[in-house]
């Protein structure tokens, strides 16, 4: 198994994972989407709401706001040792939102949410929650908790987590005459004509659409395109709640734990 990083920033990662089965790559993808925990608002206590949206609509919008997550300081509520309904300081963070449109219209933004833990805050302050007319007021208390994408999509830490097979493109240099039809047909500008032969200029952009193979006038086609199903080009984008590197490390950890649990249960069967 080998990993080659093509791009790695705080929120986006693009890498090539080679020498693994499609099942492994898919497991990593699925776990990154639905089993890596992240923080989101789960309980809303409404004191006052004279806005045009109902309490439930505002609560729904609050739940979808991505919050900066601290996986080391908090635990999933189901796994917390306090075992209480309302939670404790290790499994939930209390926040509040109190906005009144005193003179004129005002928009309530995610930046108006204030939590007891200053490390927990919305990924961006600019998300509009509701618009208030003069005199309208919104006053509520929120509880943010850790959860997984499996329970609700608001807890999905990624916006994109997908892979494609590594393309392999072979041009038969004896047969190819550089007519350029495949170059024109390619939607991703993968090919070009050089010295009267077709060459690959951007292999990683190929989407395996096979248009180049279809338009080649030669019989059999001078160009062969295949996807290597043991090498994967991953693209992962975080919502900002966690650094993308952390999401992938946690996904790998969870996959390892699942494997160990399976091994343990099989041993118990005897």
């Amino acid at each position, binding site marked *: 198994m080998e990993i080659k990083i093509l791009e790695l920033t705080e929120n986006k990662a693009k890498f090539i994972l080679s020498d693994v089965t499609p099942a492994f790559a898919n497991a990593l993808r699925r776990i990154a989407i639905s089993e890596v925990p992240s923080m989101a608002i789960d*309980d*809303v206590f409404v*004191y006052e709401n004279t806005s045009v949206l109902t309490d*439930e609509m505002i609560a729904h919008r609050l739940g979808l706001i991505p919050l900066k997550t601290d996986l080391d300081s908090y635990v999933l509520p189901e796994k917390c040792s306090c075992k209480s309904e309302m939670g404790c300081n290790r499994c939930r963070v209390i926040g*509040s939102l109190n906005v009144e449109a005193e003179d004129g219209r005002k928009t309530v933004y995610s930046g108006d949410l204030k939590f007891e833990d200053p490390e927990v805050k919305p990924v961006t302050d600019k998300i509009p929650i509701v618009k208030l007319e003069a005199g309208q007021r919104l006053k509520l208390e929120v509880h943010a908790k850790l959860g997984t994408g499996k329970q609700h999509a608001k807890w999905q830490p990624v916006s994109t987590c997908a892979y494609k097979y590594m393309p392999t493109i072979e041009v038969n240099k004896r047969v190819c005459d550089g007519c350029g039809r495949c170059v024109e047909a390619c939607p991703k500008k993968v090919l070009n004509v050089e010295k009267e032969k077709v060459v690959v200029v951007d292999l990683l952009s190929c989407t395996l659409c096979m248009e180049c193979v279809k338009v080649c006038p030669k019989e059999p086609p001078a160009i062969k395109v295949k996807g290597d199903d043991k090498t994967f080009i991953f693209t992962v984008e975080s919502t900002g709640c966690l650094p993308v590197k952390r999401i992938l490390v946690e996904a790998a950890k969870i996959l390892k734990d699942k494997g160990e649990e399976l091994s343990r249960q099989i041993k118990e069967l005897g």
Partner: protein
Amino acid sequence: MKTLAAKIEYQCVKCGKKFTYEELSMMPEFKCSECGYRVLKKARPPIVKHVKAR
């Protein structure tokens, strides 16, 4: 944050004067005692409402 402690009440739509159910049942005619408007609405109860953000 503390919960507000007040009785369930009704409110005149025009001038905002509040009445309790008892005061309303005592009045001979169904209208606001201050401005005479005959439309009343139920003021939001002072209960803290718990909503799941799902």
